[in-house]
């Protein structure tokens, strides 16, 4: 397979309510990535636009974005896999470049969740599961992930405090990430306050809705070497799907789509979990990060709690995870999330992550989940 590089990354600040329209929000990440890559719009051969469209009044956002970002008349594609939309966009762009169809492709993820109320947002997110057979009971994302938390507790003896430790870590790094929506330090006592959303998940086990955008620019090997001093190479891509319906799930203690996506990404990269120097995982809820430890092979099934208890996933630990604060602190603007995770890993591999830098990071992994484990995307990158 032809080599494909990431030659530019960018993101907007993730905020509670962006004071502008979706095209303006998208432009923030685009400008950041274009300056990072040092290229002009005419050098982009195609664009891939990623979001969950039910938040917008705008129909067919790709057409709008291609125009506003100055990417007419180049081809554009619209890719959606809810919360993992921009990782699916990465996969799409990779295929476009590796096939030789296009040399330079831009992937833009965005979401302006503040267009609607929080209850409406929960209702829409609940409809990201099976609307015919499950939504009629009043489902929402926290309740689904709570069932996985309960399943994990019952099977492995994981506790609410173990999950709280993940949030403690998240807030440690959220404080130092100037793009994060939640930058307050949190202690265990505060996180353990019994403000349940869906038992056993409490307020601080859940990430916040946010508005934001992310952007990455991919190039063929030849173009990357020509345009970029420090390209970050895409080494492995894995994607898998699992039944949308809970009745179709095998277990409630891990996500099958993540396990399969991880396996495929490791195989393509020719490496294993022990080779990863830094990882960004999809912590929409604390339990999601706990399951990611195990689904990605950073810990044996049921042993994820030991990783966090021993602080192995801190910056100084054996496998640093979400040292940018993760979704829990950054916020989770659905369509922008994957691109933001990839940006963090790209900066790490270039040695440009500032205060968040993991020393000598050479290989990085991004785990990005859509819905409650409907779509799993795992992507592996290296510095050279």
């Amino acid at each position, binding site marked *: 397979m032809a080599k494909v590089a990431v030659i530019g990354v960018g993101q907007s600040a993730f905020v509670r309510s962006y004071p502008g329209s979706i095209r303006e929000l998208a432009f923030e990440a685009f400008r950041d990535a274009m300056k990072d890559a040092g290229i002009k719009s005419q050098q982009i051969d195609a664009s891939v636009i990623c979001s969950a469209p039910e938040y917008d009044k705008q129909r067919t956002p790709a057409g709008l974005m291609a125009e506003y970002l100055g990417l007419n008349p180049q081809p554009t594609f619209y890719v959606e896999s809810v919360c993992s939309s921009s990782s699916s966009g990465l996969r799409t762009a990779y295929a476009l470049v590796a096939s030789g169809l296009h040399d330079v492709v831009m992937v833009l993820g965005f979401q302006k969740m503040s267009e609607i*109320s929080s*209850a*409406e947002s*929960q*209702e829409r*997110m*609940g*409809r990201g599961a*099976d*609307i*015919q*057979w*499950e*939504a*009629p*009971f*009043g*489902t*929402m994302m*926290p*309740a689904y992930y*709570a*069932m*996985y*938390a*309960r*399943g994990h507790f*019952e099977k492995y003896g994981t506790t609410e405090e173990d999950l709280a430790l993940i949030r403690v870590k998240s807030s440690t790094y959220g404080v130092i990430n100037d793009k994060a929506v939640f930058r307050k330090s949190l202690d265990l006592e505060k996180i353990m306050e019994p403000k*349940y*959303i*869906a*038992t*056993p*998940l409490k307020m601080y086990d859940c990430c916040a809705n946010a508005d934001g955008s992310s952007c990455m620019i991919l190039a063929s090997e030849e173009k990357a070497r020509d345009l970029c001093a420090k390209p970050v190479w895409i080494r492995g891509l894995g994607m898998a799907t699992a039944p949308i*319906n*809970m*009745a*179709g*799930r095998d277990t*409630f203690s891990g996500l099958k789509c993540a396990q399969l996506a991880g396996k495929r990404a490791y195989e393509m990269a020719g490496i294993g979990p022990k080779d990863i120097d830094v990882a960004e995982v999809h912590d929409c809820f604390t339990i999601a990060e706990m399951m990611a430890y195990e689904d990605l092979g950073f810990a044996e099934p049921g042993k994820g709690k030991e990783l966090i208890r021993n602080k192995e996933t801190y910056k100084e630990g054996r496998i640093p995870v979400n040292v940018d604060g993760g979704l829990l602190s950054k916020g989770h603007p659905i369509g922008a999330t994957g691109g933001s995770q990839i940006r963090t890993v790209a900066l790490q591999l270039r040695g440009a992550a500032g205060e968040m830098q993991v020393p000598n990071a050479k290989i990085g992994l991004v785990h990005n989940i859509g819905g409650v484990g409907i779509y799993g995307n795992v992507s592996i990158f290296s510095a050279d």
Partner: protein
Amino acid sequence: MSFDQFGVISFTSATKTEKFVELLQDNRLSGTVCKSCGAKFFPPRSDCSFCLSDEMDWFGIDGPGELISYTTAMYAPAGFEKDVPYSLGVAEFPEGVKVFGRLDKSIPDDQLKAGLKVKVKVVSSGEGRVSYELSAA
């Protein structure tokens, strides 16, 4: 009887599986079984993804099943606020299918546990809505 009478709020008005609602009103929670290859489905399907047949029979799910996981929602999406708090769970049934749904509010909190034996309870409202819950067996 149509499918938009299923559950608290239905988001689906037309489906070829709408007999599900009629059967539920007759006090049977039902799945479909493929007449051609014997694959069993819950939730019911009108098309077999294994052999592509569209000929299905209905079968009843009686249990008792075993609760696998559950949660109690303290907040609700738009339209469900009046029901809070309510519990949701998924159970494995001896008929070879898993069933997701609301849990009966009469199950005491201290009995909620994986492994709890559950049966299906059909719930009808005055306005002609029909649903099911998982209740202690």
